[in-house]
């Protein structure tokens, strides 16, 4: 039994070692990616890069100002479309835990969330680009809002479900009508959770490219007209990365740096809100 025991102990230690090794190995790509983005990205970033428009190949300088503005515009556009619908649907689901409509909505949310972004891009193309006969920021915003919706609905529902029932009772017992109870008592109590959900979904769509390939389409120039094509950071990265020019490749790294910083910042703020503003009951 002695040898047997030693074998088992060795296996035990070896297993732990392998698990630790593989766990940290999987972080290797992360560090490599962050390292290269920072190294190559920072080298390119300067005022010029942030505030100027792209120059044609052959000319030096230029920047990604239009992409930055475009990304921000798309965020605003898709948020405006998806937030009201998402929150109200989330409220409905948290107030109606059972029932055919609720279950159908929940199923739809699951399916929508798992839909590949390229398919959503096609839909936005068919619904908006084709009829309007032009690529546009609007179609990009619509595509992104379809992607934001499921996340907002789910986090709203889950946040509101956590609010104790007796809070609603207290408000109703004061003679407050049901809809005001929801709007003025329940929603504010769930604000931090809902905000977190919104920020997380914004972080998700900020980096999305596929839905924009045939909707927002990209634009060399600055554009704030929602009925015209608009540039965006992810699109510009894709465009520059796939090009044959080394100067543009380094611009791609620079734009990536900005994008990663933006995404990480959004995630951090979301976590921060979730931690600091959490309502005590």
């Amino acid at each position, binding site marked *: 039994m002695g040898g047997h025991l030693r074998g088992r102990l060795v296996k035990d230690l070896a297993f732990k070692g392998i698990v630790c090794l593989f766990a940290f190995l999987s972080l290797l790509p992360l560090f490599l990616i962050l390292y290269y983005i920072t190294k190559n990205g920072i080298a390119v970033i300067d005022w010029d890069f942030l505030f100027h428009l792209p120059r044609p190949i052959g000319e030096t300088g230029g920047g990604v100002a239009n992409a930055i503005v475009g990304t921000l515009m798309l965020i605003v556009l898709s948020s405006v479309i998806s937030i009201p619908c998402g929150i109200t649907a989330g409220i409905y689901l948290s107030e109606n835990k059972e029932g055919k409509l609720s279950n159908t909505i929940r199923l739809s949310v699951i399916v929508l969330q798992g839909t590949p972004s390229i398919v959503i891009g096609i839909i936005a193309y068919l619904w908006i680009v084709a009829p309007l006969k032009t690529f546009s920021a609007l179609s990009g915003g619509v595509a992104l809002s379809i992607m934001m919706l499921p996340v907002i609905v789910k986090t709203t529902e889950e946040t509101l479900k956590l609010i*104790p029932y*007796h*809070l609603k*009772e*207290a*408000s*109703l*017992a*004061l*003679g*407050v*009508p049901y809809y*005001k*109870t929801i709007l*003025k*008592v329940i929603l*504010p*109590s769930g*604000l931090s959770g809902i905000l977190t959900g919104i920020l997380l979904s914004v972080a998700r769509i900020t980096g999305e490219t596929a839905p924009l390939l045939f909707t927002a389409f990209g634009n060399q120039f600055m554009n704030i007209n929602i009925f015209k094509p608009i540039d965006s950071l992810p699109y510009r990265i894709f465009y520059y990365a796939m090009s044959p020019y080394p100067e543009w490749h380094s611009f791609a790294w620079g734009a990536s740096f900005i994008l990663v910083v933006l995404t990480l910042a959004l995630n951090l703020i979301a976590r921060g809100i979730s931690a600091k503003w959490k*309502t*005590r*009951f």
Partner: protein
Amino acid sequence: MENTVLKIDSFSAYFGDNKILKEVDLTVPRNVVAALMGPSGCGKTTLIRCVNRMHELIPGATVSGKMTLIDEDIYAMQPIVLRRKVGMVFQKPNPFPTMSIYENVIAGYKLNGIRVAKSELDSIVERSLRRSALWDEVKDTLHRKGTFLSGGQQQRLCIARALAMNPEILLLDEPTSALDPKSTSQIEELFVELKRNVTMLLVTHNIAQAARVSDLTAFIYLGELVEFGPTEKMFTVPKDKRTEEYLTGKFG
């Protein structure tokens, strides 16, 4: 009949086909503390929740019979209008977590959009907090969140919140069962003063509490109002055998 605040006539309540309250008749006069006591599940909580029509929030809940508040038929009124005239304090203290103490007291006004001058609001807050014996403890921290108070303080805040609406009657659903003994006795002392300003209907599973604080007591058993009368008489010479058995601890 102006001395009567609440009149309950042959009132029954159902959950689906389950009859919870059976033809209850009860009259509550002004400025008393009326206790409703009885074993778990006897229907006493259901009864007060019917007074402010919270019972019907549960799907499948129905009622029959009549309830009159002063001179209005409760079931003919708009529920939200009714609920502004009837205050309720719950078993577990539930101040609104996103509001300060001040805002909690006047929550009934703010949420209902009732416009009141700021000076008026200030005096409402002070009056309500004094009545619930909380003013001295919080008068300097009115703008802190309500959830930072202790359990007993939170419950007194909830009482103040209900009182701020100047209700005709205050319903209390086992208000001290979640509190420690010290807070419990603080609140019981409160009732003695409070009944000068408002009538109270108190549900309690604690027989001793009913004996301590109430002027009138009702004993409810299996949905029936078995006996109702002055507390001292009921506890010393109960008229019904079931009351006697409950009081001596044979069941409950």
